């Protein structure tokens, strides 16, 4: 059962469209597998929409904003309407064609939220395989991370945040077992050593390289940049 969900603040920012594409997709992927969050998102969207299009809500910030009022008056709405209805095009929904990705002879379906994203080549270290998702979000790096059975990531902390959404399989760390659909958001205060007994595929978003903390593992800090 899915036990880890996005915080409500994250869901709010998601609905408002304020999160970067990487985190937005992470929440969409989770919600696709989580009826509970689907419901929360639907309700909150409805509420935000209602507030956005309510006259009174608007009146509240129309006050003191004469400039904006003037510029609204300056726009030729009639012209815009005519230009729009002049077109007889309608948008066809092309049925989404499933995209697959293979790691070590296993094929996985790519979540719909990632359908239009560009994927990089596989890179390997030990039992880990990483494919970068090319979102161009500067210090935020997004990847698909595959861990072969018995593989794991040595104990580390996160300098920024690290989001993991489990797409398939399972892994565990000091806090417990994670399953498909789990949405795990960690920050610098967390230290963990995730291990996947049977292998797994994760969607990961990290804002800074991992930092390995324990003895000899400190030598692994270059791997931190690999996973980041």
């Amino acid at each position, binding site marked *: 059962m899915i036990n880890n969900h996005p915080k409500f603040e994250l869901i709010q920012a998601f*609905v*408002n*469209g304020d999160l970067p*594409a990487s985190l*937005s*997709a992470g929440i*969409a992927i989770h*919600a*696709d*597998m989580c009826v509970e969050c*689907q419901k929360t*998102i*639907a*309700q909150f*969207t*409805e*509420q*935000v*929409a*209602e507030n*956005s*299009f*309510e*006259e*009174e809500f*608007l009146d509240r*910030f*129309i006050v003191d904003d004469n400039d*904006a009022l003037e*510029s*609204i008056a300056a*726009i030729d*709405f009639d012209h*815009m*309407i005519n*230009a*729009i*209805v002049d*077109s*007889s*095009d*309608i*948008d*066809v*929904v*092309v*049925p989404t*064609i*499933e995209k697959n990705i293979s790691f070590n002879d296993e094929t996985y379906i790519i979540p*719909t*939220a*990632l*359908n*239009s*994203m*560009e994927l990089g080549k596989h890179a390997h270290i030990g039992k880990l395989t990483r494919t970068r998702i*090319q*979102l*161009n*979000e500067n210090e935020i790096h997004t990847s698909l991370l595959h861990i072969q059975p018995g593989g794991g990531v040595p104990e580390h902390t996160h300098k920024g945040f690290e989001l993991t959404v489990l797409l398939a399989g399972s892994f565990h760390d000091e806090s417990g077992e994670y399953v498909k659909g789990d949405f795990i958001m960690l920050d610098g205060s967390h230290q963990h050593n995730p291990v996947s007994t049977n292998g797994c595929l994760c969607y990961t978003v990290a804002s800074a390289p991992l930092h390995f903390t324990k003895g000899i593992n400190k030598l692994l800090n270059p791997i931190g940049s690999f996973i980041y």
Partner: protein
Amino acid sequence: MQTNLLSKETSAKSTHMSDKINHPQLCQWLDSVAHSRDKQAFTHLFQFFAPKILRIARGKFPNEAQANEVVQDTMSNVWRKAHLFNKDKGAATTWVYTVMRNVTFDMLRKIQGNKEDNLSDDIWPVAESMSCETEGFDDHLADKNLLSVIENLPQAQQDVVKGFYLREMSQEQLAVHLNLPLGTVKSRLRLALGKLKVQLGEKHD
């Protein structure tokens, strides 16, 4: 007569709905745009939504031209995608909000120099807003199979079948859209289905 039906469904939907917005009226306008490309109904929708969208966009984009572009793109998506709105899945305001948020999101990504990749409709589907898709999973293969069979139909029949089943337009909508008499739409659909049955039957039996 239809208005009563609509208001019953819509008002029963949720506690978040206020009386300040005439939801049944908005649904009806969207419906008229979807079914009969009703320009008058679109003008009403535009007058209701455009000033509000503009104000919200002004909050997100410092540049006036960009804010105007949000209005233009959102409203022209409403015009082109109205048939994708499903009043049983939520309010018209929620749907238009989704369209607006998606336009804004893609534009911000473009402006911030991330990429011009239009990811929003994959993240927030406009067609079936946040519906549970899990039951559709098994059918994807069958769909692909079906699609390839449809592709082999004569073009005229393909248009009708795709419009009816994939875009979920009504026969009346299709007649308007394809500029054909309703009878022609019906007979093409019948012909096409006959062929599909023969072809798929071979594989399914």
